[in-house]
């Protein structure tokens, strides 16, 4: 096993037990004992042991490839109806920053049907050095198999060092396929990325255990290094009209078309509402909303703010608002600039879905509930009285 405890030198001080982030260590007969199923092999125990009784045998995957031959950063530019997802632009800006730490060319890779002629230009203006464009009618809508076949073929031939993609429904269906096809690592739902100055590796930070713990992850011995990244954690660039770049067009290979899956219809049913994941401001309601009719009030506030309406699981399970609005562990993870929690007590399952918001506003009757305690602005009172007053204030 990778964690070895020397029973001769262990003095049973318990330093490692209290420091293990995963509660995997305990003292058995006055000697440290590691429970393998809980251990994540982070090695923190070895660094805190005063007697050097713990050694971490770093078992790692062997590098079987010429890793130095992989170059460039790719950003998968997700498009729907020819419109690029905001998170793709955010990643282009981030890729520029990574490329300034370690010189690299930033490519936007776009699979589309060519209906938006300006799409490649837009990608360059917002950060891409080069665009790899595959355009065909078959690529109009996302298909898991077709898209992954195309991206796999491109990555296999061109050997990018890093591939980044938004942690969207599409990104989180596409990237896992491509990573397994390439037999490389993929880190999901990252909230931070940087280049390790010593090794030049991409360090990917992501929350785990419902956001209770943050993990820094790297992919040392395989390439490309791949990550999906949450929306709104990085800012997109202002379009820079002076930027110019090269667009390389690659023909669609018909062999990549999936014969086993097909999108029959794309239904948009959220109407004029702002998408929850794109929203800068979210007004969210919970049990304290008391009934479905009161969500009209939240909608009104959201409209006044130009935001979207969210909900807690309690409100969704009560049937007051559709599941598409649910924020939290079994719903969506959001990180808007402002999250206004109305009548939401703040159970951990809800908090994990929204606690990375820049600013949290809580409106609640109970000043002691968890949401009020973590809120930047806590308003204790009757939300049915306060919300209309806020709307009035905004309209002044």
């Amino acid at each position, binding site marked *: 096993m990778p964690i070895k405890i020397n029973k001769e030198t262990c003095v049973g001080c318990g330093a490692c037990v209290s420091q293990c982030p995963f509660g995997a260590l305990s003292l058995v007969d006055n000697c440290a004992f590691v429970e393998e199923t809980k251990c994540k092999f982070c090695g923190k125990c070895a660094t805190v042991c005063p007697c050097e009784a713990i050694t971490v045998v770093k078992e790692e995957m062997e590098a079987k490839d010429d890793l130095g031959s992989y170059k460039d950063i790719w950003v998968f530019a997700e498009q729907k109806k020819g419109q690029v997802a905001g998170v793709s632009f955010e990643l282009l800006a981030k890729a520029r920053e990574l490329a300034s730490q370690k010189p690299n060319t930033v490519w936007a890779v776009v699979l589309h049907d060519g209906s938006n002629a300006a799409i490649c230009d837009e990608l360059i203006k917002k950060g891409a050095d080069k665009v790899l464009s595959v355009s065909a009618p078959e690529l109009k809508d996302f298909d898991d198999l077709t898209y992954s076949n195309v991206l796999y073929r491109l990555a296999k031939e061109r050997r990018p060092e890093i591939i980044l993609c938004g942690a969207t429904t599409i990104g989180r269906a596409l990237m896992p396929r491509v990573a*397994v096809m390439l037999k490389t690592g993929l880190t999901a739902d990252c909230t931070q990325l940087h280049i390790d100055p010593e090794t030049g590796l991409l360090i990917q930070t992501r*929350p785990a255990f419902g956001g209770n713990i943050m993990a820094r*992850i790297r*992919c040392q011995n395989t390439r490309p290094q791949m990550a999906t990244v949450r929306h709104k954690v990085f800012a997109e660039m202002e379009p820079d009209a002076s930027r110019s770049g090269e667009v390389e067009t690659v023909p669609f290979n018909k062999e990549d078309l999936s014969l086993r899956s097909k999108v029959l219809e794309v239904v948009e049913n959220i109407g004029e509402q702002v998408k929850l994941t794109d929203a800068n401001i979210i007004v969210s309601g919970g049990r304290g909303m008391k009934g479905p009719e009161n969500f009209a009030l939240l909608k009104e506030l959201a409209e006044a703010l130009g935001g979207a309406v969210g909900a807690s699981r309690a409100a969704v399970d009560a049937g007051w608002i559709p599941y*598409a609005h649910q924020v939290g562990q*079994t719903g969506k993870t959001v990180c808007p600039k402002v999250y206004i929690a109305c009548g939401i007590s703040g*159970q951990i399952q809800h908090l994990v879905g929204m606690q990375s918001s820049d600013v949290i506003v809580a409106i609640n009757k109970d000043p002691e509930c968890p949401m009020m305690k973590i809120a930047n*602005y*806590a308003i204790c009172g009757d939300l049915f009285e306060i919300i209309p007053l806020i709307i009035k204030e905004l309209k002044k």
Partner: protein
Amino acid sequence: MNIIVTIKQVPDAANVRINPETKTLVREGVESMMNPLDAYALEEAVRLKEKLGGKVTVVCMGPPMAEAVLREAISLGADEAVLLSDRAVAGSDTLATSYALSQTISKLGGYDLILGGKQAIDGDTAQVGPGIAVNLDIPQVTCVRKVRECADGKMVVERMTEEGYDVVEVTLPAVVTVVKEINEPRIASLKGKMAAKRAQIKVMTAADIEADLTRLGLKGSPTNVVEIFSPDARQGGVKIEGAPEEQAKSLVTALKEAQLL
């Protein structure tokens, strides 16, 4: 119709706490449970079986104690349960896990459909379902909120998207991951609980699934954790006091001053 449901045992998130002094995970008193999203996958599998006939097999990778969630699955309508349990899989990332599970599934014989929750609530990666699909070379649809049709070796499902949903047709066998909108899971019946007690859980090892050991555990995992740290706990901020009118005004002023509006 032979349906496989992949399930994971996870710590009950409601009880996961951080020790404020050591900033580490407190495991004592934390119960394990079936990943909540997998419960919806299981329910959908049982409903399909009830309609079309066949068998539901639940598959789990984990330590011997994970047997508990397999028994729970039997109580909820699964017919057979398989636990892949081997020290060789400890430390597996999603690449190694999807390899191990797909090897296990391919040893079980024929299947028409593999169902699972959209993601597990401890790791939250959503990567193992698609990984299994690639390894078994079958199509996939993720985040499914409704099964419209299932007949003649084909399924028509609704995939939830940011804007609404896509209607997707997929040939079977396929991997389908589900969101909680798809159904409302049943509660175990007395008969189910009895069956769960009696059930034989088939335990398989790395040797049983004829796995390439270099593709399991840390050796088979391209990603590794280099550091674990506690996020800065959110500190409370300002309490906005006063009459409701003043509260509303103060909030709007504060948000405007912070250039958030």
